[in-house]
Protein backbone atom coordinates (compact mmCIF):
# COMPACT_ATOMS: atom_id res chain seq x y z
CA UNK A 1 0.00 0.00 0.00
CA UNK A 2 3.00 2.31 0.23
CA UNK A 3 2.80 2.83 -3.52
CA UNK A 4 -0.65 4.38 -3.16
CA UNK A 5 0.07 5.98 0.19
CA UNK A 6 -0.33 9.46 -1.27
CA UNK A 7 -3.30 8.70 -3.55
CA UNK A 8 -5.77 10.33 -1.14
CA UNK A 9 -3.78 13.56 -1.24
CA UNK A 10 -3.56 13.51 -5.03
CA UNK A 11 -7.33 13.08 -5.24
CA UNK A 12 -7.62 15.96 -2.77
CA UNK A 13 -5.51 18.18 -5.03
CA UNK A 14 -7.47 17.17 -8.14
CA UNK A 15 -10.86 17.78 -6.52
CA UNK A 16 -9.68 21.09 -5.13
CA UNK A 17 -8.62 22.19 -8.61
CA UNK A 18 -11.83 20.95 -10.26
CA UNK A 19 -13.83 22.95 -7.73
CA UNK A 20 -11.62 26.00 -8.15
CA UNK A 21 -11.98 25.83 -11.93
CA UNK A 22 -15.76 25.78 -11.65
CA UNK A 23 -15.69 28.77 -9.31
CA UNK A 24 -13.45 30.98 -11.43
CA UNK A 25 -14.27 29.89 -14.99
CA UNK A 26 -17.99 29.05 -15.06
CA UNK A 27 -20.27 32.06 -15.51
CA UNK A 28 -23.35 30.32 -14.09
CA UNK A 29 -23.82 31.15 -10.41
CA UNK A 30 -25.37 27.80 -9.42
CA UNK A 31 -22.44 26.08 -11.11
CA UNK A 32 -20.11 28.21 -9.03
CA UNK A 33 -21.87 27.07 -5.87
CA UNK A 34 -21.59 23.43 -6.96
CA UNK A 35 -17.89 24.05 -7.55
CA UNK A 36 -17.63 25.53 -4.07
CA UNK A 37 -19.26 22.38 -2.72
CA UNK A 38 -16.67 20.21 -4.46
CA UNK A 39 -13.92 22.47 -3.13
CA UNK A 40 -15.25 22.04 0.42
CA UNK A 41 -15.49 18.28 0.05
CA UNK A 42 -11.86 18.18 -1.10
CA UNK A 43 -10.80 19.90 2.12
CA UNK A 44 -12.90 17.45 4.13
CA UNK A 45 -11.17 14.58 2.36
CA UNK A 46 -7.74 16.02 3.24
CA UNK A 47 -8.55 16.23 6.94
CA UNK A 48 -10.16 12.80 7.19
CA UNK A 49 -7.25 11.21 5.28
CA UNK A 50 -4.81 12.72 7.75
CA UNK A 51 -6.78 11.29 10.67
CA UNK A 52 -6.53 7.71 9.43
CA UNK A 53 -4.20 5.36 11.34
CA UNK A 54 -3.14 2.06 9.83
CA UNK A 55 -4.90 -0.83 11.55
CA UNK A 56 -7.02 1.56 13.58
CA UNK A 57 -10.75 1.86 13.92
CA UNK A 58 -13.24 4.68 14.45
CA UNK A 59 -12.62 6.53 17.75
CA UNK A 60 -15.45 4.87 19.66
CA UNK A 61 -14.09 2.89 22.57
CA UNK A 62 -15.58 -0.60 22.67
CA UNK A 63 -14.14 -2.17 25.80
CA UNK A 64 -12.60 0.24 28.27
CA UNK A 65 -9.10 -0.60 29.36
CA UNK A 66 -8.37 -2.80 26.38
CA UNK A 67 -5.53 -1.34 24.29
CA UNK A 68 -6.76 -0.56 20.79
CA UNK A 69 -5.62 1.65 17.92
CA UNK A 70 -7.98 4.50 17.03
CA UNK A 71 -7.94 7.06 14.26
CA UNK A 72 -7.43 10.67 15.31
CA UNK A 73 -10.73 12.10 16.63
CA UNK A 74 -9.84 15.79 16.31
CA UNK A 75 -10.09 16.15 12.49
CA UNK A 76 -13.36 14.21 12.65
CA UNK A 77 -14.80 16.81 15.03
CA UNK A 78 -13.63 19.71 12.87
CA UNK A 79 -15.05 18.24 9.67
CA UNK A 80 -18.31 17.09 11.24
CA UNK A 81 -19.15 20.66 12.17
CA UNK A 82 -17.74 22.01 8.91
CA UNK A 83 -20.13 19.86 6.86
CA UNK A 84 -23.18 21.37 8.58
CA UNK A 85 -21.74 24.88 8.39
CA UNK A 86 -21.02 24.20 4.69
CA UNK A 87 -24.63 23.37 3.85
CA UNK A 88 -25.85 26.48 5.72
CA UNK A 89 -23.54 28.73 3.74
CA UNK A 90 -24.49 27.02 0.47
CA UNK A 91 -28.15 27.63 1.33
CA UNK A 92 -27.31 31.29 1.93
CA UNK A 93 -25.58 31.44 -1.44
CA UNK A 94 -28.56 29.84 -3.17
CA UNK A 95 -30.88 32.38 -1.54
CA UNK A 96 -28.75 35.22 -2.91
CA UNK A 97 -28.74 33.59 -6.37
CA UNK A 98 -32.54 33.36 -6.32
CA UNK A 99 -32.79 37.07 -5.47
CA UNK A 100 -30.31 37.93 -8.24
CA UNK A 101 -32.42 35.99 -10.72
CA UNK A 102 -35.47 38.00 -9.65
CA UNK A 103 -33.71 41.34 -9.99
CA UNK A 104 -31.68 40.70 -13.15
CA UNK A 105 -33.63 37.93 -14.87
CA UNK A 106 -30.49 35.83 -15.31
CA UNK A 107 -27.93 33.94 -13.27
CA UNK A 108 -25.08 34.17 -15.80
CA UNK A 109 -22.28 36.34 -14.52
CA UNK A 110 -21.44 37.98 -17.87
CA UNK A 111 -25.06 38.98 -18.50
CA UNK A 112 -25.36 40.42 -15.00
CA UNK A 113 -22.23 42.51 -15.61
CA UNK A 114 -23.55 43.62 -19.00
CA UNK A 115 -26.79 44.78 -17.41
CA UNK A 116 -24.89 46.59 -14.68
CA UNK A 117 -22.87 48.50 -17.31
CA UNK A 118 -26.05 49.55 -19.11
CA UNK A 119 -27.49 51.23 -16.05
Amino acid at each position, binding site marked *: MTLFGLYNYWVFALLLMIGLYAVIAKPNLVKKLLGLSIFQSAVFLLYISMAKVEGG*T*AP*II*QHAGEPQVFSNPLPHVLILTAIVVGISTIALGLAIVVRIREEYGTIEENEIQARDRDR
Partner: protein
Amino acid sequence: MYYAATAAILVTMALALARALLGPTVYDRVLAVNMFGTKTVLLVSIVAFLSGRPDFLDLALAYALINFVGVLAVLEFFQKKRHYERPR
Protein backbone atom coordinates in the same frame (compact mmCIF):
# COMPACT_ATOMS: atom_id res chain seq x y z
CA MET B 1 -16.38 -14.00 -0.14
CA TYR B 2 -16.98 -10.66 1.53
CA TYR B 3 -14.32 -9.21 -0.74
CA ALA B 4 -15.89 -10.71 -3.86
CA ALA B 5 -19.31 -9.26 -2.96
CA THR B 6 -17.75 -5.87 -2.19
CA ALA B 7 -15.88 -5.89 -5.48
CA ALA B 8 -19.13 -6.72 -7.33
CA ILE B 9 -20.85 -3.81 -5.58
CA LEU B 10 -18.02 -1.44 -6.50
CA VAL B 11 -18.19 -2.51 -10.15
CA THR B 12 -21.95 -1.95 -10.09
CA MET B 13 -21.39 1.50 -8.61
CA ALA B 14 -19.13 2.28 -11.53
CA LEU B 15 -21.77 1.00 -13.98
CA ALA B 16 -24.47 3.08 -12.29
CA LEU B 17 -22.19 6.10 -12.47
CA ALA B 18 -21.72 5.46 -16.19
CA ARG B 19 -25.49 5.39 -16.61
CA ALA B 20 -25.75 8.67 -14.70
CA LEU B 21 -23.14 10.23 -16.98
CA LEU B 22 -24.59 8.89 -20.24
CA GLY B 23 -28.19 9.74 -19.48
CA PRO B 24 -29.84 10.19 -21.95
CA THR B 25 -33.04 11.27 -20.16
CA VAL B 26 -33.19 12.90 -16.76
CA TYR B 27 -35.09 9.87 -15.46
CA ASP B 28 -32.16 7.61 -16.26
CA ARG B 29 -30.04 9.79 -14.05
CA VAL B 30 -32.50 9.67 -11.19
CA LEU B 31 -32.61 5.88 -11.60
CA ALA B 32 -28.82 5.82 -11.40
CA VAL B 33 -28.83 7.94 -8.24
CA ASN B 34 -31.33 5.62 -6.62
CA MET B 35 -29.31 2.56 -7.60
CA PHE B 36 -26.17 4.18 -6.30
CA GLY B 37 -27.85 4.82 -2.95
CA THR B 38 -28.89 1.18 -2.57
CA LYS B 39 -25.40 0.01 -3.46
CA THR B 40 -23.92 2.38 -0.87
CA VAL B 41 -26.14 0.81 1.79
CA LEU B 42 -24.90 -2.67 0.83
CA LEU B 43 -21.27 -1.51 0.69
CA VAL B 44 -21.43 0.07 4.13
CA SER B 45 -23.11 -3.01 5.62
CA ILE B 46 -20.42 -5.33 4.29
CA VAL B 47 -17.52 -3.05 5.22
CA ALA B 48 -18.95 -2.65 8.73
CA PHE B 49 -18.74 -6.43 9.08
CA LEU B 50 -15.32 -6.65 7.46
CA SER B 51 -13.83 -4.15 9.88
CA GLY B 52 -15.38 -5.95 12.83
CA ARG B 53 -17.60 -3.06 13.98
CA PRO B 54 -21.18 -4.24 13.37
CA ASP B 55 -22.45 -1.37 15.52
CA PHE B 56 -21.81 0.89 12.54
CA LEU B 57 -24.82 -0.57 10.76
CA ASP B 58 -26.58 2.59 11.99
CA LEU B 59 -24.97 4.33 9.04
CA ALA B 60 -26.46 1.92 6.53
CA LEU B 61 -29.84 2.46 8.14
CA ALA B 62 -29.48 6.23 7.80
CA TYR B 63 -28.53 5.91 4.11
CA ALA B 64 -31.50 3.63 3.43
CA LEU B 65 -33.90 6.17 4.94
CA ILE B 66 -32.37 9.31 3.42
CA ASN B 67 -32.01 8.00 -0.12
CA PHE B 68 -35.75 7.58 -0.50
CA VAL B 69 -36.44 11.15 0.57
CA GLY B 70 -34.06 12.31 -2.15
CA VAL B 71 -36.05 10.48 -4.82
CA LEU B 72 -39.33 11.94 -3.54
CA ALA B 73 -37.80 15.42 -3.60
CA VAL B 74 -36.88 14.89 -7.25
CA LEU B 75 -40.44 13.77 -8.02
CA GLU B 76 -41.86 16.84 -6.34
CA PHE B 77 -39.39 18.97 -8.30
CA PHE B 78 -40.62 17.50 -11.61
CA GLN B 79 -44.21 18.19 -10.62
CA LYS B 80 -43.44 21.78 -9.69
CA LYS B 81 -41.46 22.38 -12.88
CA ARG B 82 -44.26 20.95 -15.02
CA HIS B 83 -46.70 23.22 -13.27
CA TYR B 84 -44.64 26.36 -13.80
CA GLU B 85 -43.52 25.66 -17.35
CA ARG B 86 -46.98 25.05 -18.74
CA PRO B 87 -47.92 27.95 -21.05
CA ARG B 88 -49.81 30.55 -19.08
